[in-house]
């Protein structure tokens, strides 16, 4: 396995472009759902690479957990948020795209040339020896020896995640107690409360708009007659003026 065999080369040259296309697609797609799908393409390709590179377990985890679970979570949230929320094309930050791209190219260039140059003459050891008891066994051995502490600690991460999701998403029902009829009536007839039916909007008013408060018997407008969400309408002088009763021959 240490040497790269033809099959792997073919796989690589088919999937590597796909992975790059997937990545570019994710960045370039205007619709967020499309982005997610493009990313899934990349992730699947990577999963295959893992398997090809003697990591069957990690490859499967990639496909099942990453692609299957995590990306689904993304999609789920995207649906919640509204899938039509696509980015506008206009970039609000001046130069962001250009500079960002240049920096990206620079980063890629630096890393790729650096890495390539540095590792050209590496000898590939291959995982045959490490995997001789089976890949999963090999991993398990490491997880439960050298990395056991980190492994245990990841539980803390997961608990944090759970707690976090809970506090950020969970709303308690506001403790509304059932109120009995007697209590309701008592409250209604408490001193200072107005027990009668609320006047409808427009009563005694010159306008029958819902935004116009009713007039009380003393002529004052009653704010109780209009819904609090409606803004009180300021009447113009003309509107306020008494309108002549419509008589026959106008």
């Amino acid at each position, binding site marked *: 396995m240490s040497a790269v065999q033809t099959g792997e080369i073919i796989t690589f040259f088919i999937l590597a472009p796909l992975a790059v296309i997937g990545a570019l697609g994710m960045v370039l797609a205007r619709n967020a759902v499309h982005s997610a799908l493009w990313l899934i393409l990349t992730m699947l390709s990577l999963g295959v690479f893992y398997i090809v590179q003697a990591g069957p377990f990690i490859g499967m985890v990639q496909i099942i957990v990453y692609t299957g679970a995590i990306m689904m979570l993304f999609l789920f949230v995207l649906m919640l948020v509204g899938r039509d929320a696509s980015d506008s094309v206009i970039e*609000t*930050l001046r130069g*962001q795209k250009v*500079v*960002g791209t240049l*920096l*990206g190219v*620079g*980063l890629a260039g*630096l*890393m790729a040339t*650096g890495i390539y140059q540095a590792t050209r003459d590496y000898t590939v050891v291959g995982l045959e020896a490490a995997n001789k008891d089976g890949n999963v066994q090999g991993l398990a051995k490491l997880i439960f020896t050298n990395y056991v502490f980190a492994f245990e600690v990841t539980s803390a991460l997961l608990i944090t995640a759970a707690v976090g999701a809970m506090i950020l998403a969970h709303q308690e029902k506001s403790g509304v107690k059932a109120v009995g009829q007697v209590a309701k009536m008592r409250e209604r007839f408490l001193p200072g409360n107005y027990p009668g039916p609320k006047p409808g909007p427009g009563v005694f008013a010159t306008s029958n708009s819902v935004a116009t408060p009713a007039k009380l018997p003393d002529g004052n407008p009653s704010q109780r007659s209009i819904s609090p969400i409606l803004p009180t309408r300021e009447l113009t002088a003309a509107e306020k003026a008494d309108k002549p009763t419509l008589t026959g021959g106008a």
Partner: protein
Amino acid sequence: MLSNLWLLIAIPAASAAVLLLAGRKADRWGHWLGVLAPAASFVLGLIAFFGLRDLPGRAAEQTLWTFFKSGDMTIDFGLLFDPLTAVFVLLITGVGSLIHLYAVGYMAHDEGRRRFFGYFNLFVAAMLLLVLGNNYVMLYLGWEGVGLASYLLISFWYNRPSAATAGKKAFLMNRVGDAGFAIAIFLMLAQLGTVNYNQVFSQVGALTTGTVLVLGLLLLLGACGKSGQFPLQAWLPDAMEGPTPVSALIHAATMVTAGVYLIARSNPIFSANSTLQLIVVSVGALTLLMGCIIGAAKDDIKRVLAWSTVSQIGYMFLGVGLGGGAYALAIIHLLAHGFFKANMFLGAGSVMHGMQDQVDIRRFGGLAKYMKITWLTFMMGWLAIIGLPPLSGFFTKEPIIAAAFEQHDAWKSWVFGGAALLGAGLTAFYMTRLFVLTFHGPKRWTDGQHPHESPAVMWIPLVLLAIGSVVAGGLMASPVAKWLEPPLPAAPAEEVHGVLGHTAITVLSLVLTVLGAGLAWALFRRGTALEPQPAGPVVRAARANLYTDAFNEAVFEKPGSWLTRALVYVDNKGIDGVVNGLAALVGGGSGRLRRLQTGFVRSYALSMLAGGVLVLGALLAVRLG
């Protein structure tokens, strides 16, 4: 007494302290204390004077305490009483006491009389310190002390802007001279390591000619400042803003002669360099002519007298500049001048006293009838100063003129002798003008003037001084000259035959004097017009103090004030501006950089990525480079 010299200074100083600190309580008796103090010093001075005769070496020196000491430099607080000091002590305390007495009357109606006497005593103390010190630092101490007292007294009426300004001017111009004097002291300390008179003089020979010249010039600068000699003469006439007794005591009789004292005291230095002497003589000659010319054009009684003082001190400078026996001549003239000039100033004060503080001689006239004593005593002074024999001026001035003619170089004889001779004639002219316009001719008073004689407390000193003016010269001339040697050098044994004979000079000077006086008499016998008269360039220049004030203003004051204003601007806008600019730069930079923190998370990511690329690039560059 000679072992307790400090008492001479301490008495007036203590009196001054009492007068200045005691407050209103002392108003009633303070002035009498003020008179007593110099009188007491005078008595002590007399005792010391007589004690001196029997002393071997005729000098008493004592160190009171170490003034200050650092490293190899030690300055003692020491006093020296020798013949030169003695005559000055007697002049200061004697004439001083009389003027104090006069001031009791003169200042009777001034609410600040106690303060006045405080300052006056302070002056006497400082002046005594000046002449009693046994080293240059002591001299400097007194020197500045009299300057201070002079300032305080000139601006005694400090609510008069002119008085305040005059005081300031006096102090400042003196300070210029003092700076020179101070540097001279530093030079002595640097070259000789001492300022003690004896030690300095004994080492003068070891100094290079150049050093002596510089040292002498610096001392001369100091002397010019204090004595109102060219080019630092401008403050003296303005100093007449002070009460008249001040003018008499400080700006005529004593303080202004301190310059002469300084040069006379430093005679080993000055005698050691002929160039130096030439310069002193030139200053003296120039100043004496200047004083005469300007004095002839002035209408303010006290200013005429002031310019006359300038001119007379010019004679003294001429004398000390000539060196040799002329030192003593100058000192003798100084003493006589102390009498007659004090006399005339007090007389002028008496006139002003009677004329409601009028000072314009064009507003006087015919006063002889109304203030007889003043007229008579003033006349004595007048006759003395113009050198009419046998009054004192004749015996003291004429030898200086003669000495000026007796030089090795003929051109020097002609120039300086001629100047002195011309000065004698001019002196006669302007003094006569003053005298005639004041006491004779038609009355030109302003309305409501009731001239009257001054009270006894004022005329008694006048009379005493007048007697002094008459007899001092004749009595003193030769004994004092002898008495003064040493410390002053003796007249050289071999006589220098000048370009003119002694008799010729005497005759010439008398002729000139009579001519000058007669001309003045003829011109001003009938009074003068009140309006400024059209005049030729010389008179106009003389009225404008020969443009020296204008020169000072144009060269020092104006540029000084421009410079000051420019520097204030530089300080605020330049130096402070740089600092504030830096602060503004940081602030501005901060304000601009702040904008980079746009609040957009993508911008932040961009800056992180940029930073990352740079870090990577730099790391790789370091690695590869």
